[in-house]
């Protein structure tokens, strides 16, 4: 796994993007020379997924046999049927996770982009002090805030509702910090020019800087989505009714009373729960590139 880390400068940007004919044949050969090891590495990377899939298709006890049993014998689909339609079906939790993640992503990307932009590009009294406070809190481990948030949401009457998961996730210090980091690197000259042309601050942000930021916003969106999707501790403390469970809680409930995880059910549920994230990723990944080609900063 780590070999990529130590491989010395494997790939300086050697393949030029230009298409000079004399080079074309060599480029084609290079293509395949690179492709083979990359695919091998990728397959090695996916080995754990093969194991997950295989476990989801066999009897629970077979998951732990030594040596590992890679091919299920016999093949069983019941784990998938069980996690989708059974008593502890993950479908409602799935819907909750989607709602929480979607609202969080939208809120986070919007508020963090605006705030990050202001911290980077606008000057106002107290800005640095507020930002310092932001910086300081960005290093707080989330567990530290769990209990106070629990008390807090309980007082507000939001304990055991999805709001308890959404609200703190919509306004984060980290997202703001990341967006600021991006805007700091963007030229100020555009704004000055636009101001001279009589544009107001909102127009400058919305028309000039926001379009530049779409790739970073997509990245923040993916991040927020993944964090939200896999967050286990927060719902553990802030949610109690099964109707409000999110996926990680639902996933963790496939254990028996001794705390032993039911491997096949957990894996089947995990396999199912990867799919939407993969879709979100594939969609946003395209947008990275598209956004870049459209913004004209390339």
């Amino acid at each position, binding site marked *: 796994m780590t070999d990529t880390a130590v491989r010395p400068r494997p790939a300086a940007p050697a393949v030029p993007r230009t298409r000079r004919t004399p080079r074309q044949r060599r480029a084609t050969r290079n293509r395949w020379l690179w492709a083979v090891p990359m695919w091998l590495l990728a397959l090695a990377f996916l080995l754990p997924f093969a194991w997950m899939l295989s476990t989801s298709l066999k*009897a629970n006890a077979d998951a732990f046999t030594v040596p590992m049993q890679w091919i299920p014998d016999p093949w069983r689909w019941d784990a998938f049927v069980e996690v989708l339609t059974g008593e502890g079906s993950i479908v409602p939790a799935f*819907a909750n996770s989607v709602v929480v993640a979607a609202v969080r992503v939208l809120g986070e990307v919007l508020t963090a982009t605006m705030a990050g932009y202001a911290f980077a590009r606008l000057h106002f009294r107290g800005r640095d002090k507020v930002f310092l406070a932001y910086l300081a809190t960005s290093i707080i481990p989330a567990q530290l805030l769990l209990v106070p948030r629990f008390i807090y949401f*309980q007082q507000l009457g939001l304990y055991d509702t999805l709001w308890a998961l959404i609200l703190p996730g919509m306004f984060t210090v980290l997202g703001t910090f990341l967006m600021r980091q991006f805007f700091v690197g963007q030229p100020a000259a555009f704004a000055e020019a636009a101001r001279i042309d009589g544009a107001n601050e909102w127009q400058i942000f919305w028309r000039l800087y926001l379009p530049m930021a779409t790739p970073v916003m997509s990245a923040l969106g993916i991040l927020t989505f993944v964090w939200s999707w896999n967050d286990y501790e927060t719902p553990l403390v802030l949610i*109690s009714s099964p109707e409000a469970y999110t996926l990680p809680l639902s996933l963790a409930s496939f254990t*028996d009373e001794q705390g032993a995880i039911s491997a096949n059910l957990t894996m089947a549920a995990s396999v199912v729960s990867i799919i939407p994230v993969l879709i979100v990723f594939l969609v946003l990944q395209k947008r990275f590139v598209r956004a870049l080609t459209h913004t004209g900063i390339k």
Partner: protein
Amino acid sequence: MTAAPRISRRSLLAGGLGATALTALTGCGGRSSSPATTLNVWGGVPAESGPADLIAAFEEAHPEYTVNYTRFINDDRGNLKLDTALQGGVDIDVYITYPMESLALRSGSGMGLDLTDRVAAEPGFEPFLETEAPRAFWQDGRITALATARSPRFILLNTAHLEAAGLEVPSEWTVEEFVAMSRELTTDGRYGCYSLPDLPRIELGPNYWYTDSGDSNFSHPVFLEHMQLSRSLIDESVLFPWTEVLARHLEVFQQNGFVAEEFSLWATEPFSLRYLQDPEEYPHDFTVAAAPMPTVGPDSWNSGPFGDFLMINSKSTKQDLAWEFIRFYIKEGPPYLAPGGRIPTLENVEDETVLTGLLGEDADDWFDVDSFRRVLFEDETELYVDTNLTAYPEIDLAYQQQRDLCLIGERSPQAAIDSVDSQAQAAIDRFGKES
């Protein structure tokens, strides 16, 4: 630039999602308390291994009531969930507490209704009033929880291996005899036993971590003995290697190793019997017999506790109904709960009924039924309830950590026990004032 249209599309999407979210949020947002005829019960046993049947029976006997059962997972996180739910004012009327430290916390914080008068008024509940060998949890002279299950420990034996080695199922034995049999059952590629029974518990019984004056008791020789014997038997390959236990998290999956015939003897509790009659998930082709826990002398304890502490939430507005449920649970519940490995504290149900529940429909296919009858109902097993729980979680962790280091061969038994002793004493000194 295409920014503008894209953004308006995004806001459209946001609006749509917002509407969806709103329905989902309000759908589960309201937590108004349930009607007066609905009882909310939280327990750690999966509904399908007993509680669902018990509740169905209760609802049949009392058609005017409804019972909602919420299952929580009985581990640190699951108990945390119950604690926050209790503290967060979630509508819970009856709940079951498993770990002793949670019991002390919940009872000590007033989360358990005082049941003393109701118990005293209930014919047949006298054993709960006993204070010598308590079967209830007493807080300042009042009962706040009832231990509804006995979890005697016993040794399960793979009879196929016994026969192959020409050995008999013992009906009583000492630790030496137990070790000897483990050695005889050890073959190439198979271990005699999963782990050594908890010798300190067998010798010392309740509150075994504390001296009479409340200090750390780990300097008692039996702790060192237990560690030394475990370690040397692991080195001899008689006990299952602890490195494998850690590498496979086998502590919570012991049944897998037993079913896969990786070892022949297994010290466990009644809940494990469920796995051994489940040919779907745990296929195996040998029968299982039971032997009592080995002894270290005439005054040996069984290392199993009374457990499953039933409590009424002191915030419950339906305390009478809750008590009605508890009465039913204790009096009529055992046959329904036995399949989940629950043996009732009160001997108010026929042994055979419980035995059938524990061993299942096809008991003879999977078990040497007589040996179980003998071990579970004829032996006089001394169970315990710990009452001193000073710095319990800290000591528990220190012990586990040092045991792991010792049994994987990284630390000597003496060094490990010394470390537990000093850590336990430090924790007792620091938190002792609390109990």
